[in-house]
């Protein structure tokens, strides 16, 4: 009896110790990522949210004002005008990327996956602009489109369309779309690569089977390949959404300046945040108002991503291949 008791007790203790050790290695492996993520991402985010609840005083100290800064940003006519203008410009930017960049990326990826042997060079060439600094891209396009030294007018003239030329970057009506298209030119390589990777991961047997079933090339793409890469297209869409609120800043800042010239027609959340936080010429930087704009940006992205995850991502069917 005693014998059996000790017998069963020992493995139980051992199991417990094993279990504890098992938990420990999870902690050890997670620690570096959690630590780095917390220090460089979670903490600054929390700090920025905290800053947005204070107001700076002249002597450099801060006083807690709750949601006062948010009320100013959303209800003071001058701030609200800037905020909603920047927000709607961001939506236009997102729209242009969704209807131009991503379909173009899909088309290029589909073409490349058909001709892997000749596609290599094109794949690299189309991807290269994403590696260039936005300052260079901005400068190149400013030169191309320049009314003084640009080739845009000459090229249009060569096909008899010189009359269509306008100083697009300087006109309120066209500046935002022009900047968006420059950004599309630069970043079309990213959706192309993601979709291309998904396309070449589709097993040949599936395609062969479809062919045996009598499907034409276009029908294979439409009915077999496209459903299989839908999850990737979802990821591309959400990356585009986030990128338009965060990455659009540098290109616009380098081409149109911190005031989103002309007449705020290219002002986006990023440029609004930049000049509010760091100041612009005689406008002194205001960390608290800046943090408020940054927090609003965070909430906008959060809401967008949540809607996507709740409504779209869960309904996407994934196939084991």
């Amino acid at each position, binding site marked *: 009896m005693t014998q059996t008791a000790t017998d069963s007790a020992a493995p139980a203790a051992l199991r417990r110790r094993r279990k504890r050790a098992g938990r420990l290695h999870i902690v050890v492996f997670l620690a570096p990522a959690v630590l780095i993520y917390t220090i460089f991402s979670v903490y600054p985010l929390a700090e920025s949210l905290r800053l947005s609840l204070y107001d700076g005083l002249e002597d450099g100290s801060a006083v807690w004002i709750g949601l006062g800064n948010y009320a100013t940003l959303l209800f003071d006519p001058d701030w609200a005008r800037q905020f909603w203008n920047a927000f709607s410009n961001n939506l236009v930017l997102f729209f242009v990327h969704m209807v131009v960049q991503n379909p173009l990326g899909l088309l290029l990826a589909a073409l490349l996956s058909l001709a892997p042997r000749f596609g290599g060079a094109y794949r690299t060439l189309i991807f290269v602009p994403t590696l260039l600094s936005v300052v260079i891209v901005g400068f190149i396009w400013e030169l191309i489109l*320049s009314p003084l030294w640009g080739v845009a007018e000459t090229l249009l003239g060569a096909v008899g369309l010189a009359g269509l030329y306008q100083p697009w970057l300087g006109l309120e009506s066209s500046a935002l779309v022009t900047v968006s298209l420059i950004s599309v030119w630069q970043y079309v390589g990213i959706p192309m690569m993601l979709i291309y990777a998904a396309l070449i991961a589709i097993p040949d047997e599936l395609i062969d089977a479809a062919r045996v079933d009598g499907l034409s090339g276009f029908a294979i793409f439409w009915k077999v390949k496209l459903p299989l890469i839908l999850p990737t297209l979802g990821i591309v869409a959400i990356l585009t959404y986030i990128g338009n609120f965060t990455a659009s800043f540098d290109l616009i800042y380098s081409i149109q300046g911190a005031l989103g*010239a002309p007449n705020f027609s290219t002002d986006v959340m990023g440029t609004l945040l930049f000049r509010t936080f760091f100041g612009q010429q005689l406008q002194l930087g205001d960390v608290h108002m800046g943090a408020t704009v940054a927090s609003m940006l965070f909430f906008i992205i959060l809401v967008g991503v949540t809607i996507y995850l709740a409504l779209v991502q869960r309904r996407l069917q994934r196939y084991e291949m």
Partner: protein
Amino acid sequence: MKRLLMTTAAYAALSLAAAGAVAQTLTIESWRSEDQAIWDEVLLPAFEAKHPDINVEFKPTAPTEYNAALNARLDGGTAGDLIVCRPFDGSLVLYQKGHLAEITDLAGLENFPSVAKAAWSTDDGAETFCVPMASVIHGFIYNREAFEELGLKEPQTVEEFFAVLDAIKEDGSYTPLAMGTADQWESATMGYTNIGPNYWKGEEGRLGLIEGTAKFTDPEFVKPLEVLARWSDYMGRGYQAQSYSDSQNLFTLGRAAIYPAGSWEITGFNKQAFFEMGAFPPPVEAAGDTCYISDHTDIGIGMNAATEHPEAARTFLEWVASPEFAELYTNALPGFFSLSNATFEVKDPLAREFLSWREQCESTIRVAHQILSRGEPNTWNNLWTVGANVINGVMTPEEAARTLQDGLAKWYAPQKD
């Protein structure tokens, strides 16, 4: 043991004293990285020749990063001993936070007029914290060869100015005005604050706005916007997308006749342009009217309140306030004019022309820079946008003036109705 300690202490004391006597190194914080050679080769050797015990180093930061980087270094206690000061609130805030030392009683400050010191003094003018170094003057630089070719003279009045522009436009070989609205700030800086002082009578109008006795919607502030709106007819095709550097190139390549300028362009234009240049001040309404120029206080220098070498830093600032520095600096950097009352010869002809306007005209500074751009919406930012809007024809001068006035009245007590 005791003896050993004593000896060590003595050595320590000695080496400390020696370090103090040999050389104190001061560093200068600045955003003017293009001036590195001038400081290293002209200005600092001249100072060190007089003060061999003080060693000074010029360590600039990129202009766009200067304010943020300087603030961070001042807060962290790692900033240089001498700080090159932006005018008005940028430096006033540093002084109020205790980062800049007060230097009101510095020997040599009496060499500067009070309008020059205003940019680096408290609002009441009682305390000064930076020595004024230089101003930039606005006006128009023109292609003298183009003028001779077309038989044109420097215009004195506004109507003569537009007659000259009409003649250049009619001839067709030059773009009359080299300016664009893509970067917006030229419309405010080279446009409104360049020609405006003739209408609002310089300091009278500027101080009127500050005291609340004048408004941006008053005729003297609307008129220059109306004149600005007429400029667009003479600017290059597609000027809406013409950037600042485009305008500079257009002029220095000899393709434009007149460049609405600030004197800071002189050094660059002397290097780039292959033709002879002249300059004329902003034209007045009627011949014989008093002329007003924008002689804008742009650069000053102060000392870090936390410097370890306050005596040496003060000595350096006294030297910056001296007539010797005024002459060296103005000639080393044509287009940046010392604000000192000292008289000396300016060697560059174009710079001399600009400087001569100080004798004929009344000086003022840019209208939005003191006090008026302290709140939100920011008057200077507003001026960039509405200035460009007026030239682009998307806003009437009256609407533009209304925007400026409403923006100011929103937060500035003396302007509230």
